[in-house]
């Protein structure tokens, strides 16, 4: 418990504590307005194009908002001091060594994937995927107001990625990871000598494959088969789905690839936590 309290009271963890309240608050705010829109109908063009003068109406809002935020920041800065630990010492590694809180979701991914995926490839996909969003989301509805009914898929995917895969992993990394990057519940003592037996096996091993070459081909087949789900679904549903026809092949390939890559993270997490799977695909060059 003492270690957890020490974590909570760490000045650098104030922002992530604040997020615990801010995220639910803003989700509630957005949900309330979305429900209102979905019940009462989309605001008319006239309502959305109703114009007011920036001076004084917007400038006044900006001014008041700036004053309130500066007050909050001022009080925060007076009350809580920025941390300063001992002078840096390359010979003295703290355990655990944690990145700043906003990178802890990435550090948390390192548990489930090798560094080249968790630290380079997946962040690259996140960036590329975010930039691609407006170009692959061809749904013209829901522009300029909160709604759920008009774009359920887009909202579900983005919220899952942002809330579960980014914020929750960040919270786990901040508050539940202790020495040796092991999970410690808030009430548990941080035992630096805790031994977690590494009984993880590769997926191919679980299927009784003991030969490296066969295991390599097996892993390739599993990963290729997983990403082939996208095209299979496309050709299966193309004839009957107007949405797929409008989306087009190029956009669909990008959407399905990014989507499957994103879902691969929770799948790997479940495989690891439930079945002790280390790698899905072991090859001489890389492991996934």
């Amino acid at each position, binding site marked *: 418990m003492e270690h957890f309290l020490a974590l909570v009271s760490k000045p650098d963890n104030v*922002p992530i504590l604040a997020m615990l309240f801010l995220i639910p608050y803003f989700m509630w705010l*957005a949900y309330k307005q979305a429900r209102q829109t979905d019940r009462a109908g989309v605001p008319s063009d006239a309502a959305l194009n109703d114009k007011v003068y920036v001076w004084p109406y917007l400038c006044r809002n900006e001014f008041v908002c700036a004053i309130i935020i500066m007050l909050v920041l001022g009080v925060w800065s007076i009350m809580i001091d*920025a941390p300063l630990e001992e002078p840096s*010492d390359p010979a003295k590694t703290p355990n655990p060594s944690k990145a*700043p809180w906003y990178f802890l979701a990435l*550090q948390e991914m390192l548990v489930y994937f090798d560094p080249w995926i968790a630290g380079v490839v997946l962040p690259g996909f996140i960036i590329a995927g975010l930039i691609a969003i407006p170009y692959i989301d061809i749904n013209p509805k829901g522009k300029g107001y*909160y709604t759920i009914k008009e774009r359920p898929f887009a909202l579900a995917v983005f919220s899952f990625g942002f809330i579960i895969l980014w914020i929750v992993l960040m919270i786990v990394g901040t508050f539940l990871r202790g020495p040796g990057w092991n999970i410690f519940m808030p009430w548990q003592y941080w035992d630096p000598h805790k031994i977690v037996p590494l009984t993880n096996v590769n997926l191919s091993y679980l299927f009784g494959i003991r030969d490296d070459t066969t295991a390599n081909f097996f892993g390739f087949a599993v990963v290729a088969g997983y990403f082939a789900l996208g095209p299979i679904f496309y050709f299966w549903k193309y004839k009957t789905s107007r949405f797929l026809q409008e989306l087009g092949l190029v956009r669909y390939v990008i959407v399905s690839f990014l989507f499957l890559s994103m879902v691969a993270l929770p799948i790997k997490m479940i495989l690891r936590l439930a079945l002790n799977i280390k790698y899905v695909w072991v090859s001489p060059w890389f492991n996934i």
Partner: protein
Amino acid sequence: MNEERKGLKEKITNSDIWKSIFRHGYENTGRRYTLQILQNVWLHLHPPRISRHALNFRFTWCMGGITFLMFLVTAVTGVLLMFYYRPVAEYAFRDVQALEFDIPFGMLLRNMHRWAAHGMVISVMLHMFRVFLTGSYKKPREFNWAVGVILLLITFFLSFTGYLLPWDQLAYWAVTVGTNMARATPVLGHEGPFTPTDIVTQANDVRFALLGGTIVGPSTLLRFYILHCVAVPLVASLLMALHFWRVRKDGGISGPL
């Protein structure tokens, strides 16, 4: 009574003394409101008029504006901190200590800089969440969303480069952990897949370029200092100008267009 007061007001505002101080009155007209925006160098990025729903806190959450405010706070406090801080391994930690214990309001200055930076990371994430939820990235605002994504990365990078500067254990190991990922970059990192290890080594890979060495050391401190105080803020300012300009050119913050 009212008539009397009005007469008195006119008497005062028409007096020679009043007129010598205030060159002209303030008309309550649309023309006046428009000029107020157009003729002010700080306000002219605003359009003269915007949609009424864009004023609504429940709609915008104010998060974009707060992000910009946090950037301004870090810029001002950052410049002040630069007077007291030397990015040299021998001095860096002592300078931060001096800020805490010797320099008047040094601690407050450092606190404001750090918490404004953390606040900026929070507000920029919430801003992106809001823009997504309201579908504000849709045509014709696709490109501005892309600029926003780059600005989000820049915010993280600014925060991360600044994290090293106190040169204490917290800073040193957080940055060590963060930059260790670069070892595993495919092809360009010396421990990554597909890397030609006879060409790309620990002493010339992408992590070396970032750190200026094989471990986090004095040259890393200097590199991160320059990135943090000069290079990245410059790029951030340019992209912010583009971001705000495009908000206006694309027809205001959102709503169907």
